[in-house]
Protein backbone atom coordinates (compact mmCIF):
# COMPACT_ATOMS: atom_id res chain seq x y z
CA UNK A 1 0.00 0.00 0.00
CA UNK A 2 2.44 2.69 -1.21
CA UNK A 3 1.20 6.05 -0.16
CA UNK A 4 1.74 9.11 -2.24
CA UNK A 5 4.31 11.41 -0.65
CA UNK A 6 2.41 14.49 0.45
CA UNK A 7 3.17 17.16 3.04
CA UNK A 8 0.78 15.48 5.38
CA UNK A 9 2.19 12.01 4.98
CA UNK A 10 5.72 13.33 5.30
CA UNK A 11 4.94 14.95 8.66
CA UNK A 12 2.99 11.95 9.82
CA UNK A 13 5.83 9.68 8.83
CA UNK A 14 8.26 11.66 10.92
CA UNK A 15 6.04 11.72 13.96
CA UNK A 16 5.21 8.04 14.08
CA UNK A 17 7.24 5.56 16.08
CA UNK A 18 8.22 2.10 15.02
CA UNK A 19 5.83 0.28 17.35
CA UNK A 20 6.02 -3.39 18.09
CA UNK A 21 3.52 -5.25 20.19
CA UNK A 22 1.38 -8.28 20.60
CA UNK A 23 -1.81 -8.62 18.59
CA UNK A 24 -4.19 -11.51 18.31
CA UNK A 25 -2.02 -12.78 15.44
CA UNK A 26 1.20 -12.69 17.49
CA UNK A 27 4.05 -10.19 17.74
CA UNK A 28 4.27 -7.64 14.94
CA UNK A 29 5.58 -4.20 14.16
CA UNK A 30 2.92 -3.43 11.58
CA UNK A 31 2.04 0.26 11.91
CA UNK A 32 -1.54 -0.49 10.85
CA UNK A 33 -2.09 -2.82 13.79
CA UNK A 34 -0.95 -0.46 16.53
CA UNK A 35 -4.54 0.01 17.64
CA UNK A 36 -4.85 -3.71 18.37
CA UNK A 37 -1.69 -3.82 20.50
CA UNK A 38 -3.17 -1.81 23.32
CA UNK A 39 -0.90 -0.83 26.20
CA UNK A 40 1.66 -3.57 25.78
CA UNK A 41 3.38 -2.09 22.80
CA UNK A 42 6.91 -0.79 22.62
CA UNK A 43 8.38 2.07 20.63
CA UNK A 44 11.37 0.09 19.41
CA UNK A 45 13.07 3.07 17.77
CA UNK A 46 12.86 5.27 20.88
CA UNK A 47 14.05 2.48 23.12
CA UNK A 48 16.84 1.54 20.73
CA UNK A 49 18.26 5.06 20.64
CA UNK A 50 17.69 5.53 24.32
CA UNK A 51 19.60 2.36 25.24
CA UNK A 52 22.24 2.97 22.57
CA UNK A 53 22.95 6.50 23.82
CA UNK A 54 22.82 5.44 27.45
CA UNK A 55 25.30 2.70 26.66
CA UNK A 56 27.45 5.24 24.84
CA UNK A 57 27.48 7.39 27.95
CA UNK A 58 28.47 4.51 30.24
CA UNK A 59 31.08 3.25 27.79
CA UNK A 60 32.59 6.67 27.22
CA UNK A 61 32.87 7.40 30.93
CA UNK A 62 34.38 3.96 31.50
CA UNK A 63 36.84 3.91 28.60
CA UNK A 64 37.94 7.52 28.56
CA UNK A 65 39.16 7.29 32.13
CA UNK A 66 42.64 5.71 32.25
CA UNK A 67 42.66 2.09 33.40
CA UNK A 68 44.88 2.81 36.34
CA UNK A 69 43.94 6.24 37.55
CA UNK A 70 45.84 7.79 40.37
CA UNK A 71 45.64 11.18 41.93
CA UNK A 72 49.29 11.99 41.34
CA UNK A 73 49.12 12.35 37.55
CA UNK A 74 47.48 15.32 35.90
CA UNK A 75 44.30 14.52 33.96
CA UNK A 76 44.55 14.61 30.19
CA UNK A 77 42.23 14.63 27.19
CA UNK A 78 38.81 13.10 27.66
CA UNK A 79 39.47 12.63 31.38
CA UNK A 80 39.37 16.42 31.69
CA UNK A 81 35.97 16.50 30.04
CA UNK A 82 34.65 13.78 32.31
CA UNK A 83 35.98 15.42 35.44
CA UNK A 84 34.56 18.72 34.29
CA UNK A 85 31.08 17.26 33.86
CA UNK A 86 31.32 15.54 37.23
CA UNK A 87 32.39 18.78 38.86
CA UNK A 88 29.46 20.54 37.20
CA UNK A 89 27.03 17.95 38.53
CA UNK A 90 28.63 17.97 41.99
CA UNK A 91 28.27 21.75 42.13
CA UNK A 92 24.59 21.55 41.26
CA UNK A 93 23.90 18.77 43.74
CA UNK A 94 25.85 20.64 46.40
CA UNK A 95 23.85 23.83 45.89
CA UNK A 96 20.47 22.07 46.13
CA UNK A 97 21.26 19.36 48.63
CA UNK A 98 23.59 21.13 50.98
CA UNK A 99 24.70 18.91 53.79
CA UNK A 100 22.47 15.90 53.12
CA UNK A 101 24.61 12.95 52.10
CA UNK A 102 23.14 10.63 49.52
CA UNK A 103 25.63 9.06 47.14
CA UNK A 104 22.94 8.17 44.62
CA UNK A 105 21.94 11.72 43.78
CA UNK A 106 25.08 12.85 41.97
CA UNK A 107 25.41 9.74 39.75
CA UNK A 108 21.69 9.99 39.02
CA UNK A 109 22.01 13.63 38.05
CA UNK A 110 25.07 12.90 35.91
CA UNK A 111 23.32 10.04 34.11
CA UNK A 112 20.19 12.08 33.54
CA UNK A 113 22.10 15.09 32.26
CA UNK A 114 24.48 13.35 29.87
CA UNK A 115 21.92 10.85 28.67
CA UNK A 116 19.24 13.45 27.93
CA UNK A 117 21.83 15.69 26.34
CA UNK A 118 22.82 12.87 23.99
CA UNK A 119 19.20 12.01 23.20
CA UNK A 120 18.39 15.65 22.55
CA UNK A 121 21.43 15.97 20.32
CA UNK A 122 19.92 13.39 17.98
CA UNK A 123 17.63 16.23 17.01
CA UNK A 124 20.54 17.88 15.22
CA UNK A 125 21.03 14.94 12.87
CA UNK A 126 19.26 15.87 9.63
CA UNK A 127 15.63 14.78 9.97
CA UNK A 128 15.53 12.40 7.04
CA UNK A 129 18.97 10.89 7.31
CA UNK A 130 18.56 8.15 9.91
CA UNK A 131 14.90 7.22 9.14
CA UNK A 132 15.66 6.70 5.46
CA UNK A 133 18.87 4.82 6.28
CA UNK A 134 17.00 2.58 8.72
CA UNK A 135 14.23 2.08 6.16
CA UNK A 136 16.69 0.94 3.52
CA UNK A 137 18.46 -1.37 5.95
CA UNK A 138 15.15 -2.89 7.08
CA UNK A 139 14.01 -3.28 3.50
CA UNK A 140 17.29 -4.88 2.47
CA UNK A 141 17.28 -7.28 5.41
CA UNK A 142 13.61 -8.21 5.67
CA UNK A 143 12.58 -7.15 2.19
CA UNK A 144 9.33 -8.33 0.76
CA UNK A 145 9.14 -11.17 3.27
CA UNK A 146 7.57 -8.94 5.91
CA UNK A 147 4.25 -7.65 4.76
CA UNK A 148 4.33 -4.30 6.57
CA UNK A 149 7.64 -3.17 5.05
CA UNK A 150 6.20 -2.11 1.71
CA UNK A 151 9.18 -0.02 0.67
CA UNK A 152 12.09 1.80 2.39
CA UNK A 153 10.07 4.97 2.76
CA UNK A 154 7.16 3.40 4.57
CA UNK A 155 9.36 2.21 7.44
CA UNK A 156 8.70 4.34 10.52
CA UNK A 157 11.76 5.28 12.50
CA UNK A 158 11.89 8.17 14.92
CA UNK A 159 15.42 9.04 15.97
CA UNK A 160 14.95 11.52 18.83
CA UNK A 161 13.87 9.55 21.91
CA UNK A 162 13.03 12.69 23.86
CA UNK A 163 10.33 13.62 21.34
CA UNK A 164 8.52 10.51 22.51
CA UNK A 165 6.39 11.26 25.60
CA UNK A 166 6.83 7.65 26.70
CA UNK A 167 10.55 8.21 27.09
CA UNK A 168 10.37 11.52 28.92
CA UNK A 169 7.47 10.48 31.12
CA UNK A 170 9.23 7.16 31.71
CA UNK A 171 12.24 8.95 33.09
CA UNK A 172 10.03 11.30 35.09
CA UNK A 173 8.27 8.22 36.42
CA UNK A 174 11.56 6.70 37.56
CA UNK A 175 12.40 9.97 39.31
CA UNK A 176 8.92 9.93 40.85
CA UNK A 177 9.45 6.43 42.20
CA UNK A 178 12.77 7.50 43.71
CA UNK A 179 11.08 10.56 45.23
CA UNK A 180 8.49 8.38 46.93
CA UNK A 181 11.14 5.90 48.05
CA UNK A 182 13.28 8.58 49.69
CA UNK A 183 10.27 10.39 51.11
CA UNK A 184 9.31 7.23 52.94
CA UNK A 185 12.79 6.10 53.98
CA UNK A 186 14.09 9.52 55.03
CA UNK A 187 10.99 11.09 56.55
CA UNK A 188 9.21 7.95 57.56
CA UNK A 189 5.82 6.83 56.32
CA UNK A 190 3.92 8.78 58.97
CA UNK A 191 5.59 12.07 58.17
CA UNK A 192 5.15 11.47 54.44
CA UNK A 193 1.43 10.81 54.81
CA UNK A 194 1.11 13.76 57.17
CA UNK A 195 2.77 15.94 54.55
CA UNK A 196 0.18 14.86 51.99
CA UNK A 197 -2.85 15.23 54.26
CA UNK A 198 -2.25 17.87 56.93
CA UNK A 199 -1.37 20.78 54.65
CA UNK A 200 -2.47 23.41 53.96
CA UNK A 201 -5.69 23.43 56.03
CA UNK A 202 -4.89 21.39 59.11
CA UNK A 203 -6.39 18.13 60.32
CA UNK A 204 -10.08 19.03 59.98
CA UNK A 205 -9.96 19.18 56.20
CA UNK A 206 -7.93 16.09 55.41
CA UNK A 207 -9.81 15.16 52.19
CA UNK A 208 -9.36 18.66 50.76
CA UNK A 209 -5.74 18.71 51.79
CA UNK A 210 -5.16 15.32 50.24
CA UNK A 211 -6.67 16.33 46.91
CA UNK A 212 -4.67 19.55 46.80
CA UNK A 213 -1.40 17.93 47.83
CA UNK A 214 -1.95 14.99 45.48
CA UNK A 215 -2.40 17.32 42.52
CA UNK A 216 0.77 19.08 43.57
CA UNK A 217 2.55 15.75 44.03
CA UNK A 218 1.46 14.22 40.73
CA UNK A 219 2.00 17.41 38.78
CA UNK A 220 5.73 17.34 39.47
CA UNK A 221 6.68 14.24 37.45
CA UNK A 222 4.14 14.98 34.73
CA UNK A 223 5.39 18.52 34.22
CA UNK A 224 8.96 17.24 34.39
CA UNK A 225 8.33 14.76 31.58
CA UNK A 226 6.07 16.94 29.48
CA UNK A 227 8.40 19.95 29.62
CA UNK A 228 11.23 17.98 28.04
CA UNK A 229 8.92 16.30 25.58
CA UNK A 230 7.21 19.54 24.55
CA UNK A 231 10.41 21.44 23.94
CA UNK A 232 12.01 18.73 21.91
CA UNK A 233 8.84 17.81 20.05
CA UNK A 234 8.35 21.41 19.01
CA UNK A 235 11.98 21.66 17.97
CA UNK A 236 11.71 18.49 15.91
CA UNK A 237 8.47 19.75 14.39
CA UNK A 238 10.12 22.94 13.26
CA UNK A 239 12.97 20.97 11.71
CA UNK A 240 10.39 18.91 9.82
CA UNK A 241 8.57 22.01 8.63
CA UNK A 242 11.80 23.60 7.50
CA UNK A 243 12.71 20.38 5.71
CA UNK A 244 9.34 20.61 3.94
CA UNK A 245 10.35 24.01 2.59
CA UNK A 246 13.23 22.31 0.78
CA UNK A 247 11.21 19.58 -0.89
CA UNK A 248 7.72 20.79 -1.45
CA UNK A 249 8.07 24.35 -2.65
CA UNK A 250 9.81 26.63 -5.07
CA UNK A 251 13.56 27.10 -5.29
CA UNK A 252 13.73 30.53 -3.53
CA UNK A 253 11.80 29.20 -0.54
CA UNK A 254 14.02 26.12 -0.58
CA UNK A 255 17.10 28.35 -0.36
CA UNK A 256 15.49 30.27 2.49
CA UNK A 257 14.90 26.89 4.09
CA UNK A 258 18.65 26.18 4.13
CA UNK A 259 19.26 29.41 5.98
CA UNK A 260 16.46 28.74 8.43
CA UNK A 261 17.76 25.25 9.00
CA UNK A 262 21.13 26.62 10.06
CA UNK A 263 19.61 29.30 12.28
CA UNK A 264 17.22 26.88 13.95
CA UNK A 265 19.92 24.24 14.43
CA UNK A 266 22.16 26.80 16.12
CA UNK A 267 19.32 27.95 18.35
CA UNK A 268 18.34 24.39 19.02
CA UNK A 269 21.76 23.59 20.47
CA UNK A 270 20.81 25.97 23.26
CA UNK A 271 17.48 24.23 23.84
CA UNK A 272 19.13 20.82 23.76
CA UNK A 273 21.59 21.71 26.51
CA UNK A 274 19.13 23.82 28.47
CA UNK A 275 16.43 21.16 28.62
CA UNK A 276 18.94 18.52 29.67
CA UNK A 277 20.11 20.86 32.41
CA UNK A 278 16.57 21.70 33.52
CA UNK A 279 15.63 18.05 33.74
CA UNK A 280 18.71 17.36 35.82
CA UNK A 281 18.19 20.38 38.09
CA UNK A 282 14.54 19.51 38.71
CA UNK A 283 15.41 15.89 39.36
CA UNK A 284 17.86 17.02 42.03
CA UNK A 285 15.35 19.52 43.40
CA UNK A 286 12.54 16.97 43.71
CA UNK A 287 14.84 14.50 45.43
CA UNK A 288 16.09 17.27 47.72
CA UNK A 289 12.46 17.94 48.66
CA UNK A 290 12.06 14.27 49.45
CA UNK A 291 14.96 14.61 51.89
CA UNK A 292 13.63 17.72 53.60
CA UNK A 293 12.43 16.76 57.04
CA UNK A 294 11.38 20.06 58.61
CA UNK A 295 7.81 21.28 58.56
CA UNK A 296 6.89 23.98 56.12
Amino acid at each position, binding site marked *: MAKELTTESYIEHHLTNLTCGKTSAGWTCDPYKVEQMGF*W*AFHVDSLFWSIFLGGLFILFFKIAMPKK*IDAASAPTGAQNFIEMS*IEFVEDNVQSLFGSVKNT*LIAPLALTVFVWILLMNLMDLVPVDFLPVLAGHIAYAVAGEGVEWIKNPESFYFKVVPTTDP*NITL*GMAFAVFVLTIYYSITVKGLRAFIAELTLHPFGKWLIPVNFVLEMVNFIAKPISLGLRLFGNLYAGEMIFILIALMLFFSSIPIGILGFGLHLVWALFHILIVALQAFIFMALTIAYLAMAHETEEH
Partner: protein
Amino acid sequence: MNINATLLAQAVVMIVFVAICWRYIYPPILSVMQEREKRISDGLEAAKKADDSLEEAKLAFDKELNQAKAEAADILEKANTRASQIVSDASLKAEAEAEKIMVSASTSIENETNKAKEELRQQMSDIIIDTTQKILGDEISKEKHEDILKKAAEEL
Protein backbone atom coordinates in the same frame (compact mmCIF):
# COMPACT_ATOMS: atom_id res chain seq x y z
CA MET B 1 1.91 9.15 20.11
CA ASN B 2 0.27 6.67 22.38
CA ILE B 3 1.28 6.15 25.96
CA ASN B 4 2.21 2.49 26.16
CA ALA B 5 4.60 0.05 27.74
CA THR B 6 7.52 2.04 26.32
CA LEU B 7 7.11 4.25 29.36
CA LEU B 8 7.71 1.41 31.78
CA ALA B 9 10.55 0.03 29.68
CA GLN B 10 12.24 3.42 29.67
CA ALA B 11 11.81 3.76 33.44
CA VAL B 12 13.48 0.36 33.91
CA VAL B 13 16.26 1.22 31.46
CA MET B 14 16.85 4.46 33.29
CA ILE B 15 17.08 2.75 36.66
CA VAL B 16 19.55 0.25 35.21
CA PHE B 17 21.77 2.98 33.74
CA VAL B 18 21.63 5.02 36.93
CA ALA B 19 22.53 1.92 38.94
CA ILE B 20 25.50 1.19 36.67
CA CYS B 21 26.67 4.77 36.93
CA TRP B 22 26.14 4.80 40.67
CA ARG B 23 27.92 1.52 41.24
CA TYR B 24 30.74 1.44 38.70
CA ILE B 25 31.26 4.76 36.95
CA TYR B 26 30.91 7.56 39.43
CA PRO B 27 32.72 6.47 42.63
CA PRO B 28 36.18 5.75 41.16
CA ILE B 29 36.25 9.04 39.25
CA LEU B 30 35.02 11.02 42.22
CA SER B 31 37.47 9.40 44.62
CA VAL B 32 40.37 10.20 42.30
CA MET B 33 39.19 13.78 42.02
CA GLN B 34 38.80 14.15 45.76
CA GLU B 35 42.16 12.58 46.43
CA ARG B 36 43.80 14.91 43.95
CA GLU B 37 42.06 17.88 45.53
CA LYS B 38 43.37 16.77 48.91
CA ARG B 39 46.88 16.36 47.52
CA ILE B 40 46.81 19.83 46.05
CA SER B 41 45.60 21.43 49.25
CA ASP B 42 48.15 19.43 51.23
CA GLY B 43 50.85 20.55 48.85
CA LEU B 44 49.85 24.18 49.20
CA GLU B 45 49.80 23.85 52.96
CA ALA B 46 53.22 22.19 52.96
CA ALA B 47 54.56 24.98 50.77
CA LYS B 48 53.18 27.55 53.18
CA LYS B 49 54.69 25.68 56.10
CA ALA B 50 58.05 25.52 54.34
CA ASP B 51 57.84 29.25 53.71
CA ASP B 52 57.11 29.86 57.35
CA SER B 53 59.95 27.66 58.54
CA LEU B 54 62.30 29.36 56.09
CA GLU B 55 61.32 32.70 57.56
CA GLU B 56 61.87 31.29 61.04
CA ALA B 57 65.25 29.90 60.07
CA LYS B 58 66.23 33.27 58.64
CA LEU B 59 65.25 34.98 61.86
CA ALA B 60 67.15 32.42 63.93
CA PHE B 61 70.14 32.78 61.66
CA ASP B 62 70.09 36.56 62.02
CA LYS B 63 69.82 36.29 65.77
CA GLU B 64 72.71 33.85 65.95
CA LEU B 65 74.80 35.99 63.67
CA ASN B 66 74.19 39.09 65.77
CA GLN B 67 75.05 37.18 68.90
CA ALA B 68 78.22 35.87 67.35
CA LYS B 69 79.17 39.37 66.28
CA ALA B 70 78.55 40.71 69.77
CA GLU B 71 80.60 37.89 71.26
CA ALA B 72 83.42 38.51 68.84
CA ALA B 73 83.41 42.20 69.70
CA ASP B 74 83.43 41.31 73.37
CA ILE B 75 86.32 38.91 72.99
CA LEU B 76 88.25 41.46 70.99
CA GLU B 77 87.66 44.06 73.64
CA LYS B 78 88.78 41.70 76.40
CA ALA B 79 91.87 40.73 74.43
CA ASN B 80 92.75 44.37 73.92
CA THR B 81 92.36 45.13 77.60
CA ARG B 82 94.38 42.13 78.55
CA ALA B 83 97.12 42.95 76.09
CA SER B 84 97.46 46.47 77.38
CA GLN B 85 97.48 45.13 80.89
CA ILE B 86 100.19 42.65 80.03
CA VAL B 87 102.25 45.43 78.45
CA SER B 88 101.83 47.69 81.45
CA ASP B 89 102.56 44.82 83.84
CA ALA B 90 105.66 43.92 81.90
CA SER B 91 106.92 47.49 81.89
CA LEU B 92 106.33 47.79 85.64
CA LYS B 93 108.15 44.57 86.25
CA ALA B 94 111.01 45.64 84.04
CA GLU B 95 111.29 48.91 85.89
CA ALA B 96 111.29 47.10 89.20
CA GLU B 97 113.92 44.71 87.93
CA ALA B 98 116.01 47.54 86.67
CA GLU B 99 115.75 49.27 90.02
CA LYS B 100 116.70 46.06 91.76
CA ILE B 101 119.69 45.55 89.53
CA MET B 102 120.79 49.11 90.11
CA VAL B 103 120.45 48.73 93.84
CA SER B 104 122.32 45.48 93.94
CA ALA B 105 124.96 46.89 91.65
CA SER B 106 125.50 49.93 93.84
CA THR B 107 125.57 47.71 96.95
CA SER B 108 128.15 45.47 95.48
CA ILE B 109 130.18 48.49 94.33
CA GLU B 110 130.08 49.80 97.87
CA ASN B 111 131.10 46.44 99.24
CA GLU B 112 133.96 46.22 96.81
CA THR B 113 135.01 49.71 97.71
CA ASN B 114 134.87 48.95 101.41
CA LYS B 115 136.72 45.75 100.85
CA ALA B 116 139.36 47.52 98.82
CA LYS B 117 139.64 50.20 101.48
CA GLU B 118 140.03 47.56 104.15
CA GLU B 119 142.66 45.85 102.16
CA LEU B 120 144.44 49.05 101.55
CA ARG B 121 144.32 49.85 105.23
CA GLN B 122 145.66 46.43 106.03
CA GLN B 123 148.41 46.73 103.58
CA MET B 124 149.15 50.22 104.71
CA SER B 125 149.40 49.14 108.32
CA ASP B 126 151.46 46.18 107.33
CA ILE B 127 153.80 48.38 105.37
CA ILE B 128 154.00 50.82 108.24
CA ILE B 129 154.73 48.11 110.74
CA ASP B 130 157.25 46.60 108.50
CA THR B 131 158.89 49.85 107.99
CA THR B 132 158.74 50.75 111.65
CA GLN B 133 160.13 47.37 112.58
CA LYS B 134 162.93 47.82 110.26
CA ILE B 135 163.58 51.19 111.73
CA LEU B 136 163.15 50.27 115.35
CA GLY B 137 164.20 46.78 115.15
CA ASP B 138 162.44 44.29 117.16
CA GLU B 139 161.32 46.86 119.68
CA ILE B 140 157.96 47.00 118.21
CA SER B 141 155.96 43.92 117.48
CA LYS B 142 152.69 43.62 115.86
CA GLU B 143 151.18 42.03 118.90
CA LYS B 144 152.47 44.68 121.32
CA HIS B 145 151.06 47.57 119.52
CA GLU B 146 147.94 46.03 118.33
CA ASP B 147 145.62 48.73 119.68
CA ILE B 148 147.81 51.54 118.38
CA LEU B 149 147.77 50.01 114.96
CA LYS B 150 144.09 49.58 114.99
CA LYS B 151 143.64 53.24 115.97
CA ALA B 152 145.85 54.27 113.19
CA ALA B 153 144.06 52.07 110.77
CA GLU B 154 140.82 53.61 111.78
CA GLU B 155 142.19 57.08 111.26
CA LEU B 156 143.21 56.27 107.80
